[in-house]
C-alpha cells in the first residue's frame, strides 16, 4: 500500500467520522420531536369536527418517560392507547372537542387571571358534567392554553384528602383512579403551528415551578398543528 493511498484512506476515514458525528447530532438529537397525533374525527350526528382525548398525570412514570419518571405530563389517546406526545394535528376552520382526564392534584396558579375559562365555545367548560366559566385560582392542577387562539382552560385538581386513598402514581392512568373529567370545545382558524402550554407552576423542584416539564416538549408544552 503506497503512501498516497494511505493518505487518501486516512482523509476518507476522518471525513467519515466527522460526517457520522454530525449526522447523529442532527438526526438523533436536534431534529427529534414527539410523534404528531391527529385528532379523531367526530360524526356529524355528534356535532362534527374532531376530538382530542387527553390526560394529565402527576408523574409520567418509567414506562412512559424513562428519563424523567417524576415529571408531570400530558398524554393523548390515539385509537385506544395512551401516547406520550403533545403535538396534535387538527383541521383548519373546524370545531375541536377536547376531553381531559385530570389525575393530578392542585398546585394553584401564579397568575389568577387564568382561572377564568376563555376562548372556548360559550366561554365555558364542563367539570365532571357541571358547566362552569371559572374556578378558584388555588384549584387548578394545570391549564390547557393556546395563547395564539385565545384558548385558556384551567384544569381543576383532584381533592387532597381523596388523594392519599387512591391517587394515580404513574401514567397511563386508569379511570379507576380518582380524577376529574373536563370537556370543552374550541374553533380553529387559519392553518399554522400554534404552541400550547400550561400556566400552572407544576414543574416541582424548579424555580417558580416553571422549569423541567414546563419547558420540555412532550410534557407541559406542545403544538397544535392546524392544517
Amino acid at each position, binding site marked *: 500500500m503506497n503512501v498516497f493511498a494511505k493518505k487518501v484512506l486516512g482523509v476518507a476515514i476522518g471525513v467519515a467520522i466527522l460526517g457520522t458525528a454530525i449526522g447523529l447530532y442532527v438526526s438523533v438529537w436536534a431534529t427529534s420531536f414527539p410523534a404528531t397525533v391527529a385528532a379523531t374525527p367526530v360524526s356529524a350526528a355528534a356535532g362534527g369536527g374532531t376530538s382530542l382525548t387527553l390526560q394529565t398525570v402527576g408523574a409520567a412514570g418509567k414506562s412512559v418517560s424513562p428519563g424523567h419518571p417524576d415529571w408531570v405530563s400530558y398524554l393523548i389517546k390515539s385509537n385506544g392507547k395512551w401516547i406520550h406526545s403533545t403535538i396534535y394535528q387538527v383541521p383548519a376552520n373546524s370545531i375541536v372537542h377536547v376531553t381531559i382526564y385530570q389525575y393530578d392534584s392542585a*398546585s*394553584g396558579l*401564579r*397568575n*389568577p*387571571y*387564568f*382561572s*377564568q375559562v*376563555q376562548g372556548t365555545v360559550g*366561554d365555558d367548560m364542563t367539570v365532571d358534567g357541571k358547566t362552569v*366559566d*371559572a374556578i*378558584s*385560582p388555588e384549584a387548578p392542577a394545570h391549564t390547557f392554553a393556546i*395563547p*395564539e387562539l*385565545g384558548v*385558556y382552560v384551567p384544569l381543576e385538581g383532584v381533592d387532597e384528602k381523596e388523594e392519599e386513598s387512591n391517587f394515580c402514581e404513574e401514567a397511563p392512568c386508569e379511570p379507576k383512579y380518582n380524577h376529574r373529567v373536563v370537556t370543552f370545545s374550541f374553533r380553529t382558524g387559519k392553518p399554522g403551528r400554534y*404552541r400550547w*402550554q400550561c*400556566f400552572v*407552576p*407544576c*414543574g*416541582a*423542584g*424548579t*424555580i*417558580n*415551578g*416553571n422549569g423541567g416539564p*414546563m*419547558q*420540555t*416538549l412532550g410534557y407541559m*408544552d406542545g403544538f397544535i398543528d392546524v392544517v
Partner: protein
Amino acid sequence: MSSSQAVGPGGLGGEPNHLRRFLTLWIVSSIIALPLVIIFIGPLLGPASGNSVETSGEITDIKVLVGVATPIILLVMTYLLYALMYFRQEKGSTLEGPAIRGNAKVQMLWIVITSCLVLSVAGYGTVVLESENGDGSGSGPNPLTSPSGPKIPVQVIAQQWLFTYRYPTYGGVETTSLVLPVGKEIEFQVTSLDVIHSFWAFQIGVKADANPGIDNIAYSKPTREMTFEVHCAELCGIWHGAMHNEARVVSDAAFESWIAKQQTMLAPATKVLPTYSKSYIPEPSRRAE
C-alpha cells in the same frame, strides 16, 4: 532593495499629489452619498416615524447617526479603494515603500476630530434621551423625567410565556390583548412574575425589560390608529419566540367601549386578581414544592 524614488518625501519623485486627489474623491462621494442615504435609507430605519412621539424621536436620532456615520464609512472605503488602485507593488518588483513612521499633525487632527464627533454624538443622544423622557426605553421605577399632563397607566405583566396587561385606572382589569387610546400619554409599568422578559412594542418605539419584583416604567404617546405585534426581546425559555401578541391603537371612543366590554366579560377573573401593586412575587417564589 529600495528605490530612491520610493523613499523620497511625500509628493515628490514624480508621484501625483495623492492627498489632494483622495480628499476630492472622498468629499465628492460624501456630498453625493449623504442626501441619498438620508432620503432613501433614512425612512427604512425603523417603524414609520408617525406612529408615536417616541418613534419619531428614535427615527430622527438614527437618521442623525447614520448621517454622521456615512462620511466616516466613505472615508475609509474610498481610501481602501484608492490604496488598492495606486499604492500597489508592480508585478514582480520588490520595491520598498517610503519609510514614513508617522505624522504628528495628521494624528493630532484625527484624534481631535474623532473625539469631537463622538462627544457631540453622545451629547446629542443624551439630550434626545432625557428630553423625550427616556424615549420609550425602560427607565426604572422612578424615571428621571416624566411627561407632564395626565397619563394612562398600563401594567405589563410578563410571565412564561405571555404578556398580560392590567389597566389599574379601569378597575384593575387584566387582559391578554393590548389596546391603547390614540393621542394619550401611556405609562407602561413593566414587571415580571418569573424570569427576565423584555416588552418590545416595536411600532410605538417602546422597549423595557421585565424583571421579577421590579417596576420598570416606559412612556409612549401613540399618534395614530394601527395594529401591530408586541414581542418579547429577552430570551426567556422554550416559548420565547412564541411570546408575542397583537396590540391595537384605537380611537378614544373605541377604547372606552372595548375596556367596558372587558370589564364585564372578565369580571370573574378580575374578582380573584391580587390588588394592583407595582410588582408581584407570587408563590412559589423559589423552588416549587
